[in-house]
């Protein structure tokens, strides 16, 4: 949204942001009850990717059509994908990260060894390509679609290695939710907060809110430790534990508040505002009315 020169892929192809290819905007609000099966959402997202890919075909990008469903291939992406990722890299990333991915001092860090997971997280959350230098790169609309992001990730990983983008379902089953909650509170809540609302760190840095985070973004973030976030390798938190954490967070985000308006689920600060403005305010109006002289 902030990059004016970005091509707004979703708009151009008439997609609602709610079914965006990255799933970025789809995650937080789930108005209608969705079917019990968790895979349904993922499938829908993949469906969107497929439609998007078809659109790309019509634009003359014949190549994209063959790799329409990235998760169909669990072993990784093909050479042609890496080739396509390289082309994308040379257009959008090379100015900061250098021709050999070894970074440019004062521009961007080396990408050797960061792995596909880091690339996927950074690009799919719109943090990369960066718009400017700040304490943190904020989340914004992604510049590339899921397909292109995976290609970029494949390319960077093919050059420098590192943790790759996990494939398949990244959300644990219902009976793992509670375990995910315990792990989340122990490892993640100190920064992201028990309700995933994020928090400021020192001097302008932030632990972002998880409102918009997709399953895969969460897992790739844990694997790669973007910016100030610590790394949680698969030895430290097993893939199953990661899936449990994802299941917990997505359940938390999707559950409706049983106690009325959630008032942003940030605890006593919003409660203080409601108590003073709503509660005391309403009673003050009542007082003025009761105390008014009616003569």
């Amino acid at each position, binding site marked *: 949204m902030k990059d004016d020169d970005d091509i707004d892929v979703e708009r151009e192809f008439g997609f609602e942001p709610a079914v965006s290819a990255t799933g970025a905007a789809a995650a937080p609000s789930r108005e209608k009850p969705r079917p019990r099966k968790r895979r349904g959402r993922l499938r829908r997202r993949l469906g969107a990717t497929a439609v998007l890919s078809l659109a790309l075909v019509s634009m003359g990008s014949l190549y994209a059509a063959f790799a329409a469903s990235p998760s169909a291939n669990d072993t990784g992406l093909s050479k042609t994908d890496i080739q396509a990722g390289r082309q994308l890299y040379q257009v959008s990333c090379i100015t900061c990260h250098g021709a050999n991915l070894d970074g440019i001092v004062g521009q961007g860090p080396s990408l050797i060894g960061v792995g596909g997971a880091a690339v996927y997280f950074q690009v799919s959350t719109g943090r990369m390509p960066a718009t400017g230098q700040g304490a943190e790169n904020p989340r914004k609309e992604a510049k590339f679609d899921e397909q292109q992001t995976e290609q970029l990730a494949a390319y960077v990983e093919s050059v420098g290695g590192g943790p790759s983008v996990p494939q398949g379902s990244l959300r644990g089953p219902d009976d793992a939710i509670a375990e995910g909650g315990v792990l989340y509170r122990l490892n993640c*809540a100190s920064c992201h907060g028990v309700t995933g609302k994020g928090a400021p760190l020192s001097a302008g840095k932030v632990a972002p809110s998880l409102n918009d985070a997709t399953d895969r973004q969460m897992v790739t973030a844990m694997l790669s430790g973007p910016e100030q976030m610590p790394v949680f390798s698969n030895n430290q938190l097993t893939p199953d534990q990661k899936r449990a954490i994802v299941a917990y967070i997505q359940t938390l985000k999707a559950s409706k508040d049983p*106690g*009325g308006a959630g008032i942003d689920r940030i605890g006593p600060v919003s409660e203080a505002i409601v108590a003073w403005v709503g*509660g005391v305010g309403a009673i003050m109006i009542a007082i003025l009315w009761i105390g*008014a002289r009616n003569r």
Partner: protein
Amino acid sequence: MTTTAPTRRTDAPRTPQGKLAKFFDDRLTAARWTRATLNKLYPDHWSFMMGEIALYSFIVLLLTGTYLSFFFDPSMTEVVYPKNGTYVPMHGVTMSAAYKSTLDITFDVRGGLVVRQIHHWSALMFLAAMLVHMCRVFFTGAFRKPRELNWLIGLSLIGLGIIEGFVGYSLPDDLLSGTGLRIADAIMLSIPVIGTWTSFLIFGGPFPGNIIIGRFYIAHVLLIPAIIAVLIAAHIGLVVIQKHSEFPRRGHTEKTVGGERFMPYYMTKATAFFFIVFGVCAALGGLAQINPVWLFGPYTPSQVSSGSQPDWYMMFLDGSTRLFPSWEIRLWHHTVPPLFWPTVVLPGILFTLAGAFPFIEAKMTNDREKHHLLQRPRDVPVRTGLGCMALTFYLVLFLSGGNDIIAKAFNISLNAMTWGGRIALLILPPLAYLFAYRVCLGLQRHDREVLEHGVETGIIKLLPTGEYIEVHQPLGPTDEHGHGVLPYAGAPVPKRMNQLGASTPLRHIRGFFYPVKEKPEIQAALDELEAREQAEVESAEGPKQLTD
């Protein structure tokens, strides 16, 4: 007196009410007391209802709290949330029985959540109302002799209310309140000499131990509420004995008090207001989610959530703790931790200053008189300035208690928020004093201008000399120069034409905007009353002079 009439025996009451009264009077001899009680005047000015909000929310707290006590288990015994429990994200999680029973109230008691939320919201309202009420009493000088004792009782109620609230907030044993409890332990530890002993005494060993919830429970449901109830009774009893203070106007003098009679007016209105306060608490409890402990998780000492704050009434202490610099005293192998100053010394100073204020003010102004008439804040610029200064100080601390949320919401650096708070805490209160003082003087001057020159009518008149003047409507009789001779009487002065006589909606808000002109029959009655009072004063002064 009516009750001493000789023919009384033979006179059976004719009305049902009379028969009922007779039944009780035969047993309690209560006719005289009842008559006086039913006729007693209660305040009807809106600003006097703030204390009532606190009273009614306390009653709501008692009602909802009793309900909750039927379901809550104040035990720290470790239990496991059953795998078939209602709230799936807690299946198999180890927690205390207190936390589990809170989850059960939320998810397994029909309507339990709404009651729990009403309870928590009315706790916030209880403390907010007390603070607002205290501000009203402070800024209008209602704490002056003879009401200093009530000021002290009120202050104790605020202190107890804060403790009661904190203790109650700790009961569910969730991650947020457990974090608060850990800080409370650190505060106790920080007290010089007796700190570690105090902490071990309260927690029965090292934090958190396994008895603190039980102890807090009995303090929360019995000990503190009982003291609060007694103090509220004393607080209201003193108001009944001393009668309420009021803003000056005709009929409202140091000798007489206005208001409305208990039966049927005040009785009905007070009951109505109780329902309205209860209703607002119920609306909050239903519509806005508060303290969702199921999202916070059970307390364990290794976990924490970012953005941890206490409830609003504790936030100023959290703020002072955040702002206080890292100063620690180390003497002879002993430590006074930095936590001691902002959490023990600072509230100690604040409460002491507040409690001593009526006496300090009386001393400074050399005022030993009784005062039943309230002052408009503008008429006492120093007090108003000091009050604004204190409120600003409090507000900076309060906002700093949520400075991480503010930093996140407005993309400000956390470190900048801390420094901003530190600087603001030193600079803003004196500025607030100066500002309020100036504003008071300006308002005073304007009042006197209007009294002297009258109200601006907006009518421009061309004088024969060619000069344009605006016509002013004098408020009362004028002297030979056309200047008003009405003295300032501590009451609001109408500033615009439509505040004179004619009806405006605002005018109905009594005391601040009431009309200067009374209806003729009231006028006459008031004149008579004043004459009587004057005579009384003279007769009282007469003999005194003789004895001198």
